[in-house]
């Protein structure tokens, strides 16, 4: 902990790097940047800085290193699990001024963007300048950054076809905790950012580490053909035990871009049912219909046995379900007019679907928490991101504590089942580490010591040596 005079000097030095307007140690910024929308308690930074270039990030990192002041990289701060709170004080580095689309390669289908580019702005940019291309959008609010999302292994509307968003990463530029700028992937060797292969894959040093290994300043992500025709169907079953098989059949056809199950007690017509949204596209209506027929054929046995079937979807509902990004999950925060929700997103094998569903219902009902459950399928049934979303009333401390308790219990139970909480809160990270193979844990510790000898990067997260 530095004294006030030292902190003031650091603020002045930061101002010399990024300009007076882009640094603040005011109470207002310290208050707001110290908390996110989830249930984790506040942890205010000493100051907030808004760099505009890689060179500025580099100078900020060098300064922080010299002064041994913690750095907390932040995109939109929408992760919900408190990963951008300053657990040991220091400087929050808000990267959203770095929001330029640097290049789009139409032929090799990738975009190079600055890390603070928002999902919404990239989506709009592609629509305007490259209308035949799109990237995989999460259902996070559109301010969520490409950097923040890829680096936490996010998933989205093309994840059934192409996997996690980190699987769609071609390469990155990163300011290491000691201030050097490194390039990872083909861009380390070539002017093209086309792939991570065939080099030793160093991207893993920055994926899933919650900002503890460096500040990523640029990324290249894969783009995909944008279909002119799109459709959605919802398959409904009552028994959660059949869902892994249903998902297996539907993904075997390999036409869906997105497949997401959802289960919610409200509205009443949805209660008790397992819904699977299947989204696909085509270059013509014929292709669309052909793909639809393949999907139907895949689950014909269930339809004929009348144990499950497709829900009739009038066009306005179809439109609502194909809207990207889908704001439905965001509005869940207002179910109790309370302005808050957080979810455990558990990466799990699809086999555990029914157990996860029962877990969510049991935890929420026992604790009287408003809930919404669901699962996004990653790849051809390779795994799922099962989400247990619990709403709370921000104005009611007891209600926040109730939701927090539900989240904690869910994290614990998910690990016991064999899943792993994604973008885990700091306490859940410890629960994961406790279960982790000791050699793996030691390797993490060694890597971290090697890249961040002064331990300045987002301390309090992935603390392997606690």
């Amino acid at each position, binding site marked *: 902990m530095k004294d006030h005079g030292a902190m003031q000097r650091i603020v002045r030095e930061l101002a010399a790097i990024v300009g007076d307007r882009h640094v603040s140690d005011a109470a*207002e910024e310290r208050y*707001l940047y110290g908390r996110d929308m989830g249930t984790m308690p506040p942890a205010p930074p000493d100051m907030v800085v808004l760099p505009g270039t890689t060179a500025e990030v580099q100078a900020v990192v060098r300064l922080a290193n010299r002064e041994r002041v913690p750095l907390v990289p932040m995109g939109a701060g929408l992760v919900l699990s408190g990963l951008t709170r300053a657990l040991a004080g220091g400087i929050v580095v808000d990267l959203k001024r770095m929001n330029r689309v640097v290049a789009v390669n139409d032929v090799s289908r990738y975009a190079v963007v600055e890390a603070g580019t928002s999902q919404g702005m990239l989506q*709009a940019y592609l629509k305007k300048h490259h209308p035949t291309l799109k990237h995989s959008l999460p259902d996070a609010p559109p301010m969520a950054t490409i950097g923040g999302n890829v680096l936490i292994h996010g998933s989205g509307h093309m994840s059934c076809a192409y996997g996690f968003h980190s699987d769609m990463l071609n390469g990155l530029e990163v300011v290491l905790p000691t201030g050097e700028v490194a390039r990872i992937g083909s861009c380390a060797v070539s002017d093209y950012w086309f792939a991570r292969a065939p080099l030793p894959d160093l991207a893993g040093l920055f994926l899933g580490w919650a900002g503890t290994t460096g500040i990523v300043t640029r990324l290249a992500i894969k783009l995909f053909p944008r279909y002119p025709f799109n459709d959605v169907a919802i398959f409904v079953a009552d028994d959660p035990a059949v869902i892994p098989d249903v998902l297996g059949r539907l993904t075997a056809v390999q036409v869906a871009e997105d497949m997401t199950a959802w289960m919610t007690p409200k509205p009443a017509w949805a209660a008790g049912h397992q819904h699977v949204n299947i989204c696909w596209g085509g270059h013509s209506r014929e292709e669309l219909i052909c793909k639809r027929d393949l999907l139907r054929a895949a689950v014909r046995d269930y339809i004929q046995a009348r144990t499950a079937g497709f829900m009739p979807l009038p066009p306005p509902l179809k439109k609502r379900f194909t809207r990207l990004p889908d704001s439905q999950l965001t509005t869940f*925060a*207002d179910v109790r007019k309370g302005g808050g929700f957080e979810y455990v997103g558990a990466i799990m094998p699809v086999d555990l679907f029914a157990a996860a569903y029962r877990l969510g219902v049991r935890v929420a009902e026992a604790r009287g928490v408003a809930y919404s459950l669901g699962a996004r399928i990653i790849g051809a049934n390779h795994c799922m991101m099962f989400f247990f979303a619990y709403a709370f009333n*921000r104005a009611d401390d007891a209600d926040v504590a109730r939701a927090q308790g539900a989240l904690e219990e869910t994290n614990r139970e998910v690990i016991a089942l064999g899943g792993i909480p994604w973008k885990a809160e700091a306490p859940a990270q410890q629960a994961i580490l406790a279960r982790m193979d000791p050699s793996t844990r030691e390797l993490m510790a060694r890597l971290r010591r090697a890249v961040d000898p002064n331990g300045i990067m987002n301390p309090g997260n992935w603390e392997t040596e606690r």
Partner: protein
Amino acid sequence: MDHAEILHRCFRCGYCKLPGNHVDLNCPAYLESRFETFSPGGRMWLLRAWRDGELEASERFQRILFSCATCANCTEQCVFPKFKDRLLDVFAAGKAALVEAGRVPPAVRDYLTAVFDHGNPFKLPPKRRTLWAEGLDLPRFDGQAYLLWIGDVGAGDPRGRQMARQVARVLQRAGIQMGILGPDETSDGNEAAALGEGELFSHLARQNIARFRERGVRRIITLSPHGFNALSRLYPAHGGDFAVFHYTQILARHMDRLAPPTGGPPLAVTFHDPCYLARHNGEVQAPRRILARLPGVTLQEMDRSGKNALCCGGGGGNYFTHLLGEGPDSAARVRVREATATGTAVMLTCCPTCLAMLESAAVSQNLDGRLRVCDLAELVMERLDGCS
């Protein structure tokens, strides 16, 4: 503080920072500052912290609240039904609480004092309030079909005065029977209300309504969308029951009365929708209908138009208080850059505040000479005169 019971409902998801098509940041205060604190959600959370005694009403806190341009992008884009409709009321209530506590930035205090003492923020004596109309042969209101309401910026800003003259001329040319209040016009109070000075607003509203009644005014045309908003949406709560129109609405109806222009050199223009016309009052068609009636003129829309338009940064009193600054990320400068990106050399609007803000931004951006900022009425007059 009024509306305090909904402060906690803001999730801080940030939909409100963007326009509906997400192309770029659309909250002028956040755009300029880039600190989360200056975003709509940031304001909601800070207000709650202040109410709960976790934060003081510091100078920065005041600046954060008063730099809101009341552009209504947040109310347009927030994803929480009903709650969203109250966002601007919450911000106004927050400002009102600061006014009440005497904790306002000096520029805001000066603005409010000038309106209180002089009836307008430019401290214009009544005689100078009619400078814009000199030589126009515009009668005082005496039972004509319409009262033409100019508002503060039309009467006090040099560029606003030029616009006011052309609007009056084009309406005259269209045969609209109208009169003005001239030296008796005072502030309509739209910005006082936006700045949370409810008492001053009520005083102005009551005074203006009484004047309209005394003179038998039934129908009013406003120069500024800000005046349009005050008279049509805020005055009814104080007993105002007049038919109020923005000048583009009247002109759009009567374009066929103007000597039909037979053509003119081809001209590509872009159009900046004023927030108080498009978002606050839902009027996006009238200006476009006027443009469609001008032969040779083609409209190139900016990426953000209609209800998605980026504000010029002048609303909520910012034209007077300059709390949003004039740097490269100020809304007005971003907006003129967006206008040039359409490839046109003419940026039109229909609001004296927008006109003054954008023209000055074009100069700061070194675009003068390359981008002409003008009012729709000015273009209509030019095309008529050029072709008749």
